[in-house]
């Protein structure tokens, strides 16, 4: 296994925001001491609603990703394993449920006054216990089951609210991305449930919901998203000023950071940096010779590793399904005066919530827009939601656009599934194939 170097990757750093995400989590860990109610949730970004309700929120997947990115996931995964979760289970779920087990143990020890073995300083055990759960999980069926199990790990003592998000299978002839009867019906169905969620939160908090705050939150999120999308669009240029790894690094911000001026400023700074690089011919990868698309969920254990490895091979990974087809990606849908429908629609637009017909459209569209030479598919061992359509997408890209693909093995939060040699050899082979194709043109 050859370790990547630091030489060619040129990641975007926003100096004023380097601690933004860390500060968020540190603040959340003290929620109980500050007398705040805490909601645990997974999947859809319903946090603007929580924020408007005066709650503090913990996105389970985000915490699992953070642990994995910092290589601190082992205690949670071990706790999950000891509890009985098999290693082939979604590692996001396994890690977060392990955190739930640790949090519950810590709470029990606190209540009993017993000094136990759980190390309070371990990041995995620091999550504040939930006051209630909200599940609003699109696409993957495991997501809804996972929160149900969290509810049972806590002995069914903590209330839970479910928002059901229909899958968009493209049943009908008029079905397509953002259009058709199926889309309209599903949008209304989810919007209705969001109103019910708000009623639930009013019961949980004992206070009326602050609709003005929600409208304001969504104004900030809409603007932040617009800036993010504008910055992404600048990367159609070759060489690209920013890479997929930069957009991965800002997922936390767009996904669950509090809505507000700071969030908008962050993405304004990101866009400004990208524009500056474009204007001054500063590339995201120092010798961009290949432009690739990354399909699949992120391998959080290998964030820095992968970004440097591709850069070493003169590859700019320009865009991907997880970054470009998720996270408030259609801000024009948000009506800031009446945001519920636009929010509902975004939750339906989770990148695993579409049948392969829509996914082919999105992938091939992005490959054309960004001038892609090849697709890298991350076959994440325990994330079947993302890997399901990958073989069909690969065939479609080859057939429709003549774009080659490669698959490498890894996982979202379990480092044991990553196979570096497979990535190296297949990447080299694909790049050679691209060279040969270019030589014939």
């Amino acid at each position, binding site marked *: 296994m050859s370790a990547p170097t630091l030489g060619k990757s040129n990641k975007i750093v926003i100096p004023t925001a380097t601690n933004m995400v860390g500060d968020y989590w540190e603040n959340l860990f003290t929620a109980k001491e500050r007398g705040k109610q805490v909601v645990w949730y997974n999947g859809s970004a319903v946090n603007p609603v929580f924020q408007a309700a005066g709650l503090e929120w913990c996105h389970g997947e985000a915490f699992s990703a953070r642990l994995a990115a910092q290589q601190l996931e082992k205690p949670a995964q071990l706790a999950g394993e000891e*509890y*009985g*979760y*098999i290693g*082939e*289970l*979604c590692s996001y*779920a396994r890690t977060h449920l392990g955190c739930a087990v640790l949090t519950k143990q810590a709470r029990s020890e606190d209540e009993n006054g017993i000094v136990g073995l759980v190390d309070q300083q371990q990041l995995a055990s620091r999550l504040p216990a939930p006051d209630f759960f909200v*599940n609003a999980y699109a*696409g*993957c*069926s*495991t997501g*809804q*089951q*996972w929160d*149900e*199990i969290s*509810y*049972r790990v806590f002995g*069914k003592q903590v209330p*839970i609210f*479910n928002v*059901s998000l*229909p*899958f968009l*299978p493209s*049943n009908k002839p008029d079905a397509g991305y953002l259009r058709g009867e199926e889309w309209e019906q599903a949008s209304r*169905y989810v919007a*209705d*449930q969001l109103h*019910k969620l708000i009623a639930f939160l009013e019961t949980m908090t004992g206070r009326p919901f602050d609709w003005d705050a929600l409208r304001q939150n969504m104004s900030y999120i809409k603007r932040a998203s617009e800036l993010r999308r504008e910055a992404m669009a600048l990367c159609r240029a070759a060489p690209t000023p920013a890479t997929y790894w930069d957009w991965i690094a800002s997922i936390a911000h767009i996904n669950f950071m509090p809505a507000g001026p700071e969030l908008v400023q962050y993405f304004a700074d990101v866009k400004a940096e990208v524009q500056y690089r474009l204007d001054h011919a500063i590339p995201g990868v120092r010798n961009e010779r290949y432009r690739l698309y990354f399909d699949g969920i992120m391998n959080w254990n290998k964030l820095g590793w992968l970004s440097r490895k591709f850069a070493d091979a003169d590859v700019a990974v320009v865009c991907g399904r997880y970054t470009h087809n998720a996270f408030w990606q259609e801000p024009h849908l948000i009506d800031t005066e009446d945001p519920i429908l636009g929010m509902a629609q975004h939750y339906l637009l989770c990148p*695993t919530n579409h*049948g*392969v*017909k829509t996914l082919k459209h999105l992938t091939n569209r992005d490959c054309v827009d960004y001038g892609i030479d090849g697709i890298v598919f991350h*076959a994440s*061992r*325990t994330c*079947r*939601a993302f*890997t*399901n*359509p*990958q*073989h*069909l997408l690969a065939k479609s890209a080859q057939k429709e656009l003549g774009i080659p693909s490669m698959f490498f093995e890894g996982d979202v939060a379990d480092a044991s599934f990553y196979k570096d040699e497979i990535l190296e050899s297949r990447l080299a082979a694909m790049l050679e194939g691209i060279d040969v194709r270019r030589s014939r043109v």
Partner: protein
Amino acid sequence: MPSTFTQAMLTMSAAADSPTDYVAQWKRTTGRKALGVFPMNFPSELAHAAGVLPVIIQEDREPITVGRNLLGEFNCGYTRNVADQAALGRLDVYDGFFHADHCIQLLGAIDVVREDESDKPVYFGQLMSSMSDDWAFPQVLGKMEDFRSELEKFAGRPISTADLARSIDIFDTNRRLMRTIFENRRSGDAALTSAQLQVLVKSSMIMDKEEHSELLRQVTASLNFVPRNDRIRVHLSGHFCHAPKPELLELIEDCGAIVVDDDLFHGTRYVSTDIGETGHPLEALASVYLRRNTAIPCPTRVQHEADWDRFLVDSVYASGAQGVIVLMAKFCEPHMLFYPELRKALEAKSIPLLLIETEHEGLPMESIRTRVEALVERIRRKQLSTV
């Protein structure tokens, strides 16, 4: 001359072993359409009322080849096998495919079916998995109405209320006939092995229901009560969507165990709940979707007040089972998620438990034998120590 029992079992076994042969023959005989249905909650009664043959697509015994290049190798064996069947033309006998369950792995397989059977209708009407919400029933009822509308288009004829009520009655009759056999087993009748019971259920998922019910009557008419011997009584749990391999069931009973109850999909789960008499058949179909999960909780559904772990313990006490063998299809996420709760509940009651993971690609029978025998010995030792 084979007995009536033997002939009936042979007929049902033939359908269970080779569904496509049965379906092809049925189509030739009737001139009507066959609908491929994916497990576990599609309302087949509606399809029957439309005059088509609804067939729950079964895992077949073929090695997965092309399917391995269509879905990840870490998808469950059933979904990879479905993808393989679609890609290699083994689903060509069906005229369309309908589906109701939100299982992400199954949706991946169904996308492959859409690609490879692109000239046939493939319809997914998602029945919401979250069942404790006030809006669950209206949503499910709405989906039943959608299914009726789509099935009418598929079959080219309307489905009347009377048609549907008649189909519900036919299906309920079939379930009752099988349920009687399962109840007899629970009460101590060892006339049929667990592999034979699986044939009854699996063939019901495939065959014309009235034909199947007649065969069931022939089987039950030929059966005499056979008391159990002193084999260790076990409950088989889990294994969703597809059937455990018959040789696994035979091996379990060859190791000194006897299956006295189960909550397998190809078992009690399939026959547990009748739709019943109704003035509004679509409402009855929606209602049974919710009631069935209360009767036998499924981890693929989210229903806060339905506890599969408590159900399992209660079932063990009711049947007198001395241990539980959990059959888990490898990579089945809902099962992997719920398993620790089952384990916790059974351990709290000191009920011996064995987990066996199954795969499409074959089972390590020798090591499974060792493990089942160890479970049996453990239970026997416990029996002796309490004497």
